[in-house]
């Protein structure tokens, strides 16, 4: 059941320039799944809308969020310290399905602030997939979470940087080209990256799961603000549109038009 609850900040720290890690204590955590998200409210009611933030990791009682300071709302989040409280709407959306990778070789690709949700996914797949490779794409040497991924047992981590300062120079797909072909792909990142991965996976006939981003108001499927285009008529909307907050944010690559 979706709820709006008051969560307590357990910790907050900076991971890289402008990238924050926030750990919240909330009963919502018990229902969290890799790839799902929450709506986080600022304390300032003149900012009406909750900010969608993905779940980077969860325990039964805590949610770990990693976010970029992108504007006024996230700048306000960065001011919160231990013991302070925040209003949270959750748990929202459908996360990554784990079943397609059971006993198979999974390739996870994350770009920039699309990296965090892959962390919980990599943890979950590390015990169910035959092989897990993660490719993390960054702009430059300001890496974040890379060490956390390396700490997951049985997960291989590759880095790609746009400026070539660390790992493979270029994009996650440049790095993927040097890997053996996987059985299933999971990705999160900016739309141009997802579009490229969608094409790359389709050419090789590899099933892929993409996490999309769109501007949201309600976060729970009521306002129809957050839709993405779909290849076929969506069974809920009866047009070629699906709600990113409800049917997504994770979609099969073959279902969406990017």
């Amino acid at each position, binding site marked *: 059941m979706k709820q709006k609850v008051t969560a307590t900040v357990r910790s907050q720290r900076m991971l890289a320039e402008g990238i924050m890690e926030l750990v919240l204590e909330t009963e919502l955590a018990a229902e969290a799944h890799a790839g799902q998200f929450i709506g986080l409210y600022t304390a300032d*009611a003149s900012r*009406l809308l*909750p900010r969608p933030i993905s779940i980077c990791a969860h325990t039964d009682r805590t949610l770990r969020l990693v976010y970029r300071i992108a504007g006024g709302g996230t700048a306000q989040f960065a001011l919160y310290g231990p013991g302070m409280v925040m209003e949270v709407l959750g748990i929202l959306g459908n996360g990554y399905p784990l079943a397609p990778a059971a006993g198979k070789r999974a390739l996870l690709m994350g770009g920039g602030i699309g990296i965090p949700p892959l962390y919980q996914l990599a943890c979950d797949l590390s015990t169910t997939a035959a092989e897990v490779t993660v490719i993390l794409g960054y702009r430059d040497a300001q890496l974040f979470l890379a060490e956390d991924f390396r700490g997951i047992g049985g997960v291989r981590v590759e880095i790609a940087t746009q400026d070539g300062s660390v790992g493979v120079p270029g994009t996650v797909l440049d790095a993927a080209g040097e890997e053996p072909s996987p059985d299933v792909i999971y990705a999160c990142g900016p739309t141009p990256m997802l579009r490229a991965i969608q094409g790359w996976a389709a050419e090789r006939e590899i099933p892929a799961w993409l996490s999309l981003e769109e501007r949201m108001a309600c976060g729970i499927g009521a306002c129809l603000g*957050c839709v993405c285009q779909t290849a076929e008529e969506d069974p809920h909307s009866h047009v070629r*549109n699906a709600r990113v907050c409800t049917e997504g944010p994770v979609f099969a690559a073959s279902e969406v038009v990017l």
Partner: protein
Amino acid sequence: MSMQTTVTIAGVTLQNPVMTASGTFGSGMEYADFVDLHRLGAVVTKGVADRPWAGNPTPRIAETTAGMLNAIGLQNPGIDVFLSRDLPFLQQYADTTRIIVNVCGHSIEEYLTVVERLSDAAVDLLEINVSCPNVREGGIAFGTDAGALHEITREVKRHAKQPIIMKLSPNVTSIAEMARAAEDAGADALSLINTITGMQIDIYRRTWTLANRTGGLSGPAIKPVAVRMVYEAAHAVQIPVIGMGGIACGEDAVEFLLAGATAVAVGAAHFHEPRASLQVIEGIEQYMQDQGVTDVRTLIGAAC
């Protein structure tokens, strides 16, 4: 203190004067985790057209100070799906909660198709949206021209089995003139305001935030404009007026009642607080208790 909270609109009695604003509450289903729909005066549905509408390209949402712009473009699954899926859901609550269907179209014929399809349906009232600023064809012209408003009101009234509420656009010079045009043509009630046309430009990308460029402004930012327009409309006509625009708490709702509204609707506030409609009901009751008001109807138009 025993309190009387019911109000009547065109012969339909609501257990309290609080409804949901069209398009902000889905079909009701989406908010059922947060709100006991049995508590609401009425649920007003998202606009329903004669066939599925895909709506506008994204981005459709932009936040503004104490408000938001939307350019959904009236995406809806059409009257068939509404009748087979959404209406049966709402009927579960019909013992307490009135059902108001918001109707949209590109032409008078399209409105009439929907109205006729609803004639045998268990629906209490129809709200005719002639004011959505996000649909280029038709819609807006009906809402901003008194002659066109008169014509569509008359046609809808002739075909509708249920009483009709005409939902007025604030994007006009004289709301009183529009209110009178709808009343003259046979409207049973009015609702206002719909969203105020606005625009936001992202200065770093040097382009519009919304793909549609313009969108409808709603939320607390528009409340004073809405209160003024509800006041002007309510004093121009005899039929009941349903007030909306930025209502987020009981005090806001009371302000609309005092301005002349018989009932109120809660819209964008749902996005900040999913339980907003319940909080508004509780806030009105608290105000009545604190102020020794025994009948909510004594508040209607009581500002003097």
